[in-house]
């Protein structure tokens, strides 16, 4: 991996994180909290597919995934996202590598696997609900009740599945936009 690859990781991580941040702000409205799992993989798929055209060496996807986990740690989502992103990033890397870093179908699948870390943000909500809410009492009881009703424990695997499926949708969307815009402009 050369300096140029590392700089590319930095640039695309910045774009990706800006999208995550804008979408996460919507999470203050209870109904949007489970939707983060849908919106982040779909919207993030657009820059991520362009990023994948620049990935030619082992480790680039993994590093980006670890950086996302680190940023979640620094923005107060605790450690589960980092733990998941280290594993899912490696898996995504292996998926894309199995297509020799050029298969379009594998790229779409890679976005699905990469997006799994988004769902990990909810883990504390399911497995340590009392602790989670005890630090968020100031949201108000209405918010807590609404979210608890929206998120029974069986939703946990559903969240991961949703992130994966939406990641694939986002990958397809990203591919379409790439064909439409970036290949013409000569940057894909």
């Amino acid at each position: 991996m050369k300096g140029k690859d590392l700089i590319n990781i930095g640039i695309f991580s910045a774009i990706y994180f800006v999208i995550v941040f804008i979408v996460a702000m919507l999470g203050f409205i209870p109904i949007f909290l489970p939707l983060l799992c849908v919106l982040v993989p779909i919207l993030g798929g657009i820059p991520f597919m362009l990023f994948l055209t620049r990935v030619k060496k082992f480790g680039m996807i993994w590093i980006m995934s670890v950086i996302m986990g680190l940023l979640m740690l620094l923005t107060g989502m605790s450690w589960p996202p980092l733990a998941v992103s280290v594993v899912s990033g490696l898996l995504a890397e292996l998926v894309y590598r199995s297509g020799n870093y050029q298969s379009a179908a594998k790229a779409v699948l890679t976005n699905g696997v990469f997006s799994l870390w988004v769902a990990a943000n909810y883990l504390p909500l399911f497995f340590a609900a009392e602790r989670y809410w005890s630090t968020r009492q100031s949201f108000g009881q209405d918010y807590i009740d609404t979210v608890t009703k929206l998120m029974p424990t069986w939703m946990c695997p559903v969240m991961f599945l949703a992130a994966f499926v939406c990641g694939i949708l986002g990958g397809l969307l990203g591919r379409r936009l790439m064909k439409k815009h970036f290949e013409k402009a000569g940057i894909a």
Partner: protein
Amino acid sequence: MAGLFTADIENRGLVLDPRTKLFIMITLVVFALGGAGSDTAAVRWGTVAVSALPIVLLLTARSYKTAAVSGCLYALVKAAELCLVPHMTGAALSVCGMCCMIVIRLMPGLLMGTYMLSTTTVSEFIAAMHRMHVPQQITIPLSVMFRFFPTVLEGFASINTAMRMRDIRLGGKHAGKLIEYRLVPLMVCSVNIGSELSAAALTRGLGTGVRRTNICRIGLHWQDLSALALPVGLYGAWILGMIGVIG
């Protein structure tokens, strides 16, 4: 205030080690945002003290206005949370709870982030990360990313204005193109900036495989030790609270 990672070296007041800033940041995330140990009174008050730390640090960095405004805001809202919120119900509680949440939990972290990024140069950041034995594969993307955020946001704001003029906005005539017509130009321009950055980095010897040198003098001094005393004390109180020594 200077932009992110573009610190004004001549005129930035007291200089702290980047690692000190990072440690305070993590402490804020654990206690103010994460609410660790909030069942111990000592930790609760310690959290308030540590939350005030970024305001003091902003003073030492000579951004008096930001420090004064955020200091007053924090004091007001914290007082309101202690005196008014327990007596509220229903919708008023939800709205006020949200405001308290933003100011008391998020704001200290955001202020610390602003302070950290506006008083640290890229060189210092890399030197500190090198001392912590963080591999280059993580530090280079991270430093590019932090330096790149303002560029992305600035570009996004300009594109947003242009698209609103063409009526591509929520509730406008072409709402369906809302996302495509914003993200695509943003990415094209980011990719171009990226290749320029790579060329610039190449001239500075990045990616040659040799050990790079750094002229930044970083290290722990008296100012770091005094800034660290409070967070370390807070961790101490947290542990004492957990094993039940203090209530």
